[in-house]
């Protein structure tokens, strides 16, 4: 099986190809990194309550949208 110590050139080439193919998704979403990080915190808070036997429900949707900010 391939590994980075003996197949470094192939790995570099495949990483370049991955970055090229996903360029627009990566660039566009990277502008929202801070929001995504906040979502991770939000998610962990919800998980904390769920783990402590609370029922967490989603309320007050606006036009079928969850308004994050």
């Amino acid at each position: 099986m391939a590994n980075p110590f003996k197949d470094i050139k192939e790995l570099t080439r495949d990483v370049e190809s991955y970055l090229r193919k996903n360029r627009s998704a990566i660039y566009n979403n990277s502008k929202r990194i801070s929001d995504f990080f906040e979502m991770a915190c939000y998610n962990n808070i919800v998980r904390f309550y769920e783990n402590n036997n609370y029922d967490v429900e989603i309320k007050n949707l606006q036009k079928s949208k969850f308004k994050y900010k």
Partner: protein
Amino acid sequence: MIKLFTDNLPYKLSEQMTFEYNGRINDINYFLSGRYDYYTPLKKDIETIQLLLALSIFYKRVLSNFDSATKFTSRIIFKSEAESVQLGTYDLSAKEIFKLNKTVLTFKKLMEDYSIPIGLFEYLETKELLRKIKVYKDSLARETDNG
């Protein structure tokens, strides 16, 4: 090596990643300079270490946040009547989440193809990363010897 990843990123994020990479690469060069016998065998793999470091920074600073957004939005969409999550003027819909998720999964698949465990990217200090790389390399060598 980090330039490969930062070329397609917004300036601010790209600067942060470059700063982190440069700081950590200085630490790595120090550890591989011959002062520590434990790390000396890694000296010839500097190119691989640079790439693994760059991959880890990209994963931690970019992809793990994509993953969080995917988990959060999936939670909202699948557990309620909501069709999307509104972020200011931008709507994070199931379609967008699918694209984001694909970016993360493709990366994980690539790492799997090269036997790189994602756990390698979980570290705080550079020394911790280097120690993980050493253990990882030794385990690959053992597998090759046994196989």
